[in-house]
């Protein structure tokens, strides 16, 4: 790895701190009984003291980020486009509501950070009516943004207090227009990170803006092949303690979305091996191939009840398998990637400390032969020294 230009890079994750100084990366398990800054200083205070605030860069994926609820008039245009933009801005989507069904939708129990309302090209109007306003009256939310047809903007503004109106994300050719909503959501996310007392205090050690970790990772993607022996096209799986992020290049998507960004991101919430262990197990139990895979790995389902290294390994392996399933045609999801065209699968995050390339290859082989009935075998590449994160974090802000 190249030097970091004598910068100190710090990543605050949901489970670990990562600290990169020069060529070395240290990782520390977080202590959740302590405030973030206090915990960080206890673990790496001496190192941090050696750097000027201008040379310290911090990013954070802790605290889950912002939650969004999207209301749109169709699945393949408005909901899909808004979902795509929100994912790319690093937002967690708690639910999507098809407007025609809004009368039968239950309300989320938690406060929603941002509600996105979308639908219609500008040539159409009168899409929204009382059922929307009635739902919004009952919903607990902090922000609401409208990005649908401009013809309905006035009615929306009259009926939903404090709504932010931005240009339509669907243009007259039914293509996606990302920029305005993406900037709005990214800023909201940024304000949220900065507003969290815990994170805010980190400005005591850095003079640079604190970014979200997915943003940093996404920024490294176009230059990844300069650092790794990665064969294009590739996907990047960031399997962490609480969530799993997938970054992929656009040419791997069979889709009606035509965007300008080269790389997209998809998040599977509650698919992590520490904080989301239980929901990972639930997801595994819901997959009909899990038991065959467990047998293949020479363990039984008792492994779900075990703790320890062996159980963590198997859970990590299951996480890789489930993520691949979710992206394939076998499971219809928000997007399907052309998995048969992928030449490398790059893995980063906590998983690289637990699994070896051979242990991942077993899963890749099982998935491609069982689910895709193919002999294709993408090569697994482990980013075990967090070079991708370093690459993104080192880039000029």
């Amino acid at each position, binding site marked *: 790895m190249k030097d970091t230009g004598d910068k100190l890079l710090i990543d605050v994750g949901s489970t670990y701190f990562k600290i990169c100084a020069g060529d070395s990366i240290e990782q520390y398990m977080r202590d959740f009984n302590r405030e973030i800054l206090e915990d960080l200083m206890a673990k790496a205070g001496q190192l941090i003291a050696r750097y000027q605030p201008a040379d310290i860069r911090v990013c954070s994926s802790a605290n889950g980020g912002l939650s969004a609820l999207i209301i749109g*008039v*169709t*699945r393949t245009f408005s909901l899909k486009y808004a979902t795509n933009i929100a994912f790319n801005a690093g937002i967690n989507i708690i639910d999507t509501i098809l407007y*025609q069904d809004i009368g039968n939708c239950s309300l989320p129990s938690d406060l929603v950070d941002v509600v996105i309302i979308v639908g219609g090209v500008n040539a159409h109007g009168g*899409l929204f009516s009382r059922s929307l306003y009635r739902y919004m009256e009952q919903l607990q939310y902090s922000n609401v943004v409208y990005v649908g047809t401009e013809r309905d903007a006035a009615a929306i503004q009259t009926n939903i207090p404090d709504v932010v109106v931005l240009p339509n994300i*669907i243009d007259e050719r*039914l293509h996606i227009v990302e920029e305005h909503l993406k900037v709005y959501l990214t800023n909201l996310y940024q304000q949220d990170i900065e507003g969290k007392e815990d994170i805010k205090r980190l400005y005591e050690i850095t003079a640079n803006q604190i970014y979200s970790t997915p943003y940093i990772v996404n920024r490294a993607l176009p230059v990844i092949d300069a650092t790794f022996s990665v064969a294009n096209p590739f996907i990047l799986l960031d399997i962490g303690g609480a969530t799993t992020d997938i970054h992929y290049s656009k040419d791997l998507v069979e889709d*009606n979305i035509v965007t300008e960004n080269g790389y997209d991101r998809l998040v599977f919430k509650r698919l992590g091996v520490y904080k989301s262990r239980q929901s990972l197990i639930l997801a595994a139990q819901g997959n009909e191939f899990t038991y065959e895979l467990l047998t293949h790995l020479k363990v039984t389902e008792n492994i779900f009840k075990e703790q320890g290294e062996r159980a963590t390994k198997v859970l990590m392996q299951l996480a890789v398998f489930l993520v691949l399933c979710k992206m394939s045609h076998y499971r219809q999801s928000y997007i399907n990637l052309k998995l048969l065209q992928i030449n490398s699968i790059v893995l980063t995050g906590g998983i690289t400390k637990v699994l070896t390339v051979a242990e991942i290859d077993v899963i890749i082989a099982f998935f491609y032969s069982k689910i895709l009935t193919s002999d294709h075998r993408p090569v697994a590449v482990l980013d075990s020294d967090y070079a991708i994160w370093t690459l993104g974090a080192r880039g000029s802000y």
Partner: protein
Amino acid sequence: MKVVTGVVGNDIHVVANRLIDLALRARGYEVFNLGVNTHLQEFFDAVVETGAQVLMISSLNGEAEGWGREVRLLRSQYTNLDDLIMMIGGNLVVGSGNGEDIAARYRNYGFDIACHQVDLNTGLDMLAALLRERGIQ
């Protein structure tokens, strides 16, 4: 009058689609062209997003029948498509067949007009006649 058009399924025959786009515009329609390779759900969703009154589907490569059978079920899942006029044209069967029989079958699938190997202008005249008949244009 707004029209959503495109070529259904995994069909990449694009020439007729381009001609349809031009011919519709020349006749004064507002066109939303989804192009080739369009899934059935995308057609209906595009109608909802645009408020189109007419959905005009092409199929050239022989897939039409398979999609045709799914139309009623899918359409019934939408609450706001009752007044939509649906039309399909191109090569509606694999190989050849009697145009009248084929059209009757597609009306059964839920299409108002079905044009098996009917020239485009004839088809558009049929649409204009139907719109007049329904007092829409």
